[in-house]
């Protein structure tokens, strides 16, 4: 048969050349006879025909069995052609040839005969389909189908499954398959099966173990309880890891929101209450970019990284030139004036765009999740934001430590008069620093647009948290901001299941208030000359 399928392309050419009727070609196809067998009058024969299809290894067998299961594999009454019904609605159904899967126009439902199955066959088909998936070449696909088998194994599948396990090369797939088999064996009371289930996080495996632990057989019950205890521990570890991940994710958002502030407030000493609104501008830039490039959310998102930086930086320069420069040395007044700016920006967005939230689409490569094991999967968008936050932080560190601008900024903050007399243009440095901090806020907005709603109040929700992070970490210290942001995020997530979201937040705030009493200069206080400013 394999030989035949090799010649098939050649045959097909021949058919086309000679313009032979299709029926002739179809009869040469080995599939035809396989399908003919399916159209047997007795269900026992049909069962055999199904086995034959599985054994044939034909690429099309999956589709045949699926359509058979759905009742969509049918036969034309007159031409006896096997067809697959594509859509069984209305009077005329669009169909495809069952051998070539080429569309064959519409056929009236009266002309078609369904190949019937009964419940026993349906069960056999389902099992056969899941087994069939274990023969594909792609290991990921095999793993997925092995996972689907967990808890779905029954008596007739045991034998073929054991054979499959022996031939399987991939260790992960083999492990899953033996677990699937073990669940069945344990249900039958086999103590040895427990060994295969140890450490499995699968829901079905756990429920089987649970019922085994309650059984009358003491040996079985003890073994099952021991296995369950191990699993429980693993679950706890998983939960801990998940909390840590969510905590780090929340922390990375805090770091992103606060890191720009760490520059404007920490390094320059300027209180910018409009920082949150700069974040908002970044998020809206992403939205606007997606409106400009409809249908390409990924490209729009990547382009909005520089665009968001630019928009927020320009807005920052406007705020610095328009307001802050007149209030030098009066931090409390700066706070009030920039708060006014934040109100104006918020209202501007409400009036010009809309008071409602806007939706920012996530590109495909950002949605979905990475599966670590059965109890733990990490959502991709949070992973990306975490990476992005670290990247932004590294970039900022580089700018502050390795570039001329960073050197000048540090010089001006430590001793403005001396820096000026060394020829540094302090005003220019002020503008650049503020633009940098604001631009980073814009970047935070771009990242946040992937996690939360984009609305006029977006920034407001982050401003107090950001200030807390900067103060907690120690003003003027970028490392402090990173550590403070991440640890506050983790603390918040650890408290949350125990205290609830709102109370967790309150506890964190109270904690910071108390912490500031103990260490007024934060986790990493500045030392030396810079501290005296």
């Amino acid at each position, binding site marked *: 048969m394999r030989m035949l399928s090799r010649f098939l392309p050649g045959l097909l050419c021949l058919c086309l050349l000679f313009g032979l009727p299709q029926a002739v070609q179809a009869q040469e196809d080995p599939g035809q006879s396989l399908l003919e067998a399916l159209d047997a009058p007795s269900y026992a024969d049909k069962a055999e025909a199904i086995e034959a299809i599985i054994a044939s290894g034909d690429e099309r067998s999956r589709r045949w069995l699926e359509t058979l299961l759905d009742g969509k594999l049918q036969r034309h009454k007159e031409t006896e052609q096997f067809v697959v019904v594509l859509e069984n609605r209305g009077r005329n159904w669009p169909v495809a040839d069952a051998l070539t899967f080429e569309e064959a126009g519409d056929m009236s439902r009266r002309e078609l005969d369904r190949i019937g199955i009964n419940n026993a066959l349906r069960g056999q088909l389902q099992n056969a389909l899941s087994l069939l998936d274990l023969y594909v070449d792609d290991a990921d696909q095999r793993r997925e189908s092995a996972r689907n088998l967990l808890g779905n194994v029954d008596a007739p599948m045991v034998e073929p499954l054991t054979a499959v396990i022996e031939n399987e090369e991939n260790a992960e797939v083999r492990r899953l398959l033996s677990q699937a088999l073990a669940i069945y064996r344990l249900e039958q009371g086999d103590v040895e099966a427990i060994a295969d289930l140890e450490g499995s996080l699968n829901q079905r495996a756990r429920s089987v173990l649970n019922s085994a632990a309650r059984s009358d057989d003491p040996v079985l019950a003890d073994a099952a309880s021991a296995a369950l205890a191990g699993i429980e521990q693993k679950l706890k570890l998983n939960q801990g890891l998940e909390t840590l991940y969510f905590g780090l994710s929340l922390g990375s958002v805090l770091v992103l929101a606060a890191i720009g502030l760490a520059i404007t407030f920490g390094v320059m000493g300027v209180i910018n209450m409009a920082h949150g609104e700069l974040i908002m501008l970044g998020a809206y830039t992403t939205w606007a970019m997606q409106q400009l490039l409809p249908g390409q959310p990924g490209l729009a998102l990547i382009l909005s990284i520089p665009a968001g930086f630019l928009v927020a930086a320009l807005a920052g320069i406007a705020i610095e030139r328009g307001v802050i420069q007149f209030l030098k040395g009066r931090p*409390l*007044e700066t706070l009030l004036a920039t708060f*006014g700016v934040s109100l104006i920006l918020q*209202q501007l967005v409400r009036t010009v765009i809309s008071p409602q939230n806007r939706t920012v689409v996530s590109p495909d490569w950002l949605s979905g999740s990475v599966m670590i094991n059965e109890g733990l999967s990490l959502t991709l968008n949070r992973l990306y934001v975490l990476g992005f936050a670290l990247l932004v932080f590294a970039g900022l560190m580089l700018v502050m430590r390795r570039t001329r601008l960073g050197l000048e900024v540090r010089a001006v903050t430590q001793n403005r008069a001396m820096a000026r007399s060394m020829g540094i243009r302090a005003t220019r440095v002020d503008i650049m620093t503020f633009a940098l901090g604001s631009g980073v806020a814009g970047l935070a907005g771009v990242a946040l647009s992937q996690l939360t709603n984009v609305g006029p109040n977006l920034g407001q929700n982050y401003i*107090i948290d950001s200030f807390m992070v900067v103060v907690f970490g120690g003003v003027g210290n970028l490392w402090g901001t990173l550590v403070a942001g991440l640890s506050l995020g983790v603390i918040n997530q650890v408290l949350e299941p125990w205290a609830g979201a709102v109370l967790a937040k*309150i506890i964190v705030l109270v904690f910071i208030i108390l912490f500031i*009493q103990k260490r007024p200069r934060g986790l990493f206080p500045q030392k030396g000359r810079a501290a005296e400013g």
Partner: protein
Amino acid sequence: MHSIDTSQRFWLTRPFRERATQLFLGVLFAALLLVTVLHLAVPQGHPLHVTAYTVNLFGKYLSYALLAVSVDLVWGYLGILSLGHGAFFAIGGYAMGMYLMRQIGDRGTYGDPVLPDFMVFLNWDSLPWYWLGFDMAWFAFVMVLVAPGLLALVFGFLAFRSRVTGVYLSIITQALTFALMLAFFRNEMGFGGNNGLTDFRELLGFDLRTDTTRLGLFLATGVALALGYLLCRAIVTSKLGRVSVATRDAEARTRFLGYRVERFQLFVFVVSAMLAGLAGALYVPQVGIINPSEFSPIFSIEIVLWVALGGRATLYGAVIGALLVNYAKTVFTGVMPDAWLFALGAMFVLVTVFLPKGVAGLLAYRVKRKRNDPDDSAKPQEATV
């Protein structure tokens, strides 16, 4: 500044000798009288008639003015920019609200003689311990002062002892009110959650819905404002007040001179918090509701704007600012609600950049030019904060 005359026996009446105080109290009482006469004596429908609604509105403004005075006391004379005074205001308001809730008795929707409606709704079967005693007016009125005072005492003790000042203190006070807002939004706190306390009926036996009670509350608020103003004035003209101002201008130097700076700061801060609480308690029966939005950081920062606009470190400037901004708010939100936030934001920017001494600074400048008197008492002190 005026030299302080310590020969006067009673400290509260000492400020009567100042021109600015005389003027302020004179104008305030004239205004109270005018509104009362126009409300009672002028028939309804007459263009000069002041409606009960307006009286109520003015009463609300006056309680805001008292709140602004309390903020000016700490910001203007102590150099502490509190962005959390709304919290003290709200706590005072809640203390009053709890008393008013208990006065409803069994006339609530569920008719429970003891439990307020929202507790019945939450299926609570007894009052939480912190609600006990609020059926007695004297206890509630004491708590109006004690509760915010206690919070300020604990918070201030921790903050001033560790020398948290300046911008840090501002941010921490903001975090305080933010945390309280989140807490009061929770139903489990037992303060009515999101909806707060409302549906009040009577205060000390007076029906809150009658025009006479409203007029009475308006006048009471006016008197409270006058007393609060006098108290603050007495504090700032005393020796203690002068140490406060010294702390504001040069904290380290004052400390080196031997003053325990944190004690002065704590005292003034607690007094200010109590005044804010009193303002809240007068505010609640006039607007008929207290809910967690009074804790919102925006409200607290708005109070600061009133003071900044009116003119810091003058006390009467705070009153002017509170009245002006709130009147503007009423007008704006009525005519074009969208524009209000623009106007508010612009005010923040313009006042801080162009009018650092506020309206009071402008007035003082005029007066000074007219008199050409270099030692004018109405001149606000230099505030280098």
